């Protein structure tokens, strides 16, 4: 039996194309950095990207996870990448982004945001990474090893941030200091490997940009508490990504300011992301990128996904208020003035990143997800048992427990963010609709 319900008004996002263009030019800028006499570096989306910014205005980066995800969008290229890494002798159970990335080096091909494949993988001038998940440091260590086989020596610096996460008290000073010292050495290292003089002013700017960008994104996510939700997870993917590729850049801050204004306006006018919203869900980790149509299937049941701990907390910065609500983290009292101040500020800003917390404590992730469920008026949670990412699916079974015990309906599904061989679309859809029907939902008339 199919049902019909009243529909909310919808509108295409105005800054949609701007988002697309920012992403497009990002990959091109990295590619063409040298033509403009610029510097290009590679590292993770979580690396302290504001530090290399002190090398000059013409410093461009390629962050690994978004690049791995971009590859995952284009199944043929992904398949080639996996074939290449497996042929090189790497197990197929490794991080899927990492295998995509290595594959791109092994094939010596580079893919742009629109899927255009270019010959020759542009090697970075240096690698600037951080390490919290077992694969972070290894990822670029191998990337470097592969480049070296092609005769390119790439220097690598990797900051260890695996100092833990205190549930309720602030992190001890010696832990903050451990990271700070590494960054401090890092600045000198950057000068050494690039032969450039380091500009502390640019550093302070970049740090302040990053702090603002990551706050703005949290604000935007908060707006999704509204009914109907102004944004859905699928479109958020194209928006949060700015924070993963250029969180320290002024363009990012500017874009998020514009976006925030637009979303506020949507809320004011009751514009929905999904016209027939009537059941609100969230997910947790990265989706199987090649199969975003699951979200379309969900809409047929009037189900909208408001986002995920991943889209909210990967780069958005949050904290618990005294009243127990989860909200945007407060802006530090003033913009940093010196290198020391800037480095300390960014360390203290970063250490309680939501997506880092649950690397250590399952309770932390459960608590945050429960807050989202409550504050965002969520009806059910979809947990992606993501075979492609150890880091974000660590403790996931515990989270399932925590949510179920708190009375939240949970739908766990197995998949892989970057390796389509490990995602069974038809089977998952069948189980998903079973879940919705067990929730008493029926398919809606088109």
């Amino acid at each position: 039996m199919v049902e019909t319900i009243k529909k909310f008004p919808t509108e295409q996002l105005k800054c949609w194309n701007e988002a697309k263009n920012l992403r497009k030019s990002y990959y091109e800028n990295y590619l063409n950095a040298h033509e403009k006499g610029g510097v290009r570096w590679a590292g993770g989306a979580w690396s302290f990207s504001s530090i290399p910014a002190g090398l000059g205005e013409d410093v461009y980066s390629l962050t690994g996870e978004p690049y791995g995800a971009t590859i995952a969008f284009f199944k043929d290229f992904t398949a080639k990448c996996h074939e290449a890494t497996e042929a090189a002798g790497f197990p197929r159970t490794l991080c899927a982004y990492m295998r995509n990335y290595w594959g791109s080096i092994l094939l010596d091909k580079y893919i742009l945001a629109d899927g255009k494949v270019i010959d020759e993988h542009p090697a970075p001038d240096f690698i600037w990474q951080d390490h919290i998940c077992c694969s972070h440091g290894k990822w670029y260590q191998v990337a470097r090893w592969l480049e070296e086989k092609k005769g390119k020596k790439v220097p690598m610096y990797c900051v260890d941030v695996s100092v833990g996460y205190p549930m309720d008290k602030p992190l001890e000073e010696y832990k903050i200091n451990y990271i700070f010292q590494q960054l401090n050495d890092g600045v000198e290292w950057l000068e050494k490997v690039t032969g450039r003089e380091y500009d502390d002013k640019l550093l302070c700017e970049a740090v302040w940009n990053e702090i603002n960008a990551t706050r703005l994104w949290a604000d935007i996510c908060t707006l999704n508490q509204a009914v109907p939700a102004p944004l859905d997870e699928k479109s958020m993917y194209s928006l949060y990504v700015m924070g993963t590729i250029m969180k320290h850049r002024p363009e990012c801050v500017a874009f998020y300011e514009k976006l925030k204004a637009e979303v506020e306006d949507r809320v004011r006018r009751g514009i929905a992301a999904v016209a027939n919203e009537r059941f609100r869900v969230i997910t947790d980790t990265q989706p199987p990128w090649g199969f975003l149509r699951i979200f379309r299937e969900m809409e047929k049941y009037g189900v909208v996904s408001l986002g995920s701990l991943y889209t909210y907390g990967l780069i958005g910065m949050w904290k618990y208020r005294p009243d127990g609500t989860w909200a945007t983290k407060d802006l530090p009292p003033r913009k940093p003035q010196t290198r020391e101040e800037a480095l300390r500020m960014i360390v203290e800003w970063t250490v309680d990143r939501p997506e880092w917390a649950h690397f250590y404590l399952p309770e932390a992730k459960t608590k945050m997800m429960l807050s989202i469920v409550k504050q965002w008026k969520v009806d059910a949670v979809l947990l992606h048992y993501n075979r492609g990412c150890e880091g974000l699916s660590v403790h996931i079974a515990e989270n399932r427990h925590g949510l179920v015990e708190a009375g939240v309906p949970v739908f766990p599904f197995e998949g892989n963010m970057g390796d389509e061989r490990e995602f069974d679309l038809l089977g998952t859809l069948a189980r998903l609709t079973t879940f919705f029907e067990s929730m008493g939902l029926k398919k809606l008339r088109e």
Partner: protein
Amino acid sequence: MICLRIELRLFVGSEKYKCGDFIFFSSNLYNVLGSAYLVEEIFQKFKDWIDNRHEYAKEWKERTNRKIIGYFCTYVPEEILYAADILHVRILGSHEPPTVTEPYIFAMFCHLCRDCLAQGLKGKFDYLDGIVEGQACLHLRQAFNAWRLHIPVDYAYYIYVPHSVQNPHATPYLAQELAKFKHSLEEWIGRKVTDSDLDRGIRTMNRNRELMRKIYEYRKLDNPKITGLEAMEMVLSSQMVDKEEHSKLVEQLLRELPNRKLNRNPGARLMIIGSEDDDRIFMQNVENLGATFVIDEHCTGSRYLWNNVSPSEDRLGAIAERYIERVPCPSKDWPEFTRVKHVVNLAQEFKAQGALVIQNKFCDPHGIEIPPLKEALKSIGVPIYPLEFDVTVPWGQFRTRVEAFLETLTGLEDLF
């Protein structure tokens, strides 16, 4: 002496091992039976310790009424636990499909972490007063957390051992982590851990590692005096029993080993490489195919005992230094591949002809290093063959691969 003697009787029990408990004190028995017999008894003892590890621990606890702590990873500074008069035993699996862990750990995490947790959930380690983990990988961290949340223990502590062991700030940082850990231990056991306690811990651990390393020397001989299985059982048992007691036995072994005649053809000289490995049946099966494991690179083997603490006034600093500079777990070994270099040295020192790489399915840090490892070993003429280990090992399949690998190393040349 006396108490030791009784204790051994208590748990060795059966007639067969009677002479086992005289090993330490009675040389006249040795004169009667000769060293050969003695050596076999010692190896038998290592086996028994492994097979009866839980009985041993319970008995130890009853006798000493001291605390026992289980640890998951060799990054836990045992020196400090020893100094606190705590028996520290390593938590390992049973190689039975871990059904009970499904609700707590997603099955894409390695079988070791699931198998360890399964042991806890089944109550096999019900004598533990606490658990400690020294940060290494996500997998064991998950086992630690699930244990903390679902299995009653009085004490659970996670040491944030730094990942970036190649960076100069790691040692002082770890020293502070260790101070914090020591403090929390003191609160738990209700007494201070003094410098002389720490010295004792360091001494005891160093001695045990040193003795086992000396035994490893006998694996370099053209006809090794000890098989890979025996070496594995020696090191495994050292992670399960009181170090003093273990050292006494290894010391004895060290005295007797030179006279040992192993009447077996060593066959191909193999190296075995991987993360945790306590699969004794696999070792035995492979060595029965006409090969000998002359060296290993496992954290249940050489990696565990290769480095010592160099004592200094700053005890915790010295201990920290040892854990930062030890042969690293691949999860901590970047940006340089120092472990790969170490493996190459081992292969040369111990004259390995080929290497089997045991890849515990889903262990990313070790899996990532296979190609660089392969390249490095190939450059010194040592071929490798990787085998993916899961909770159970399909020997039928592996037998063919291993035998064929051995055939390429030796065997069939003269038949063409």
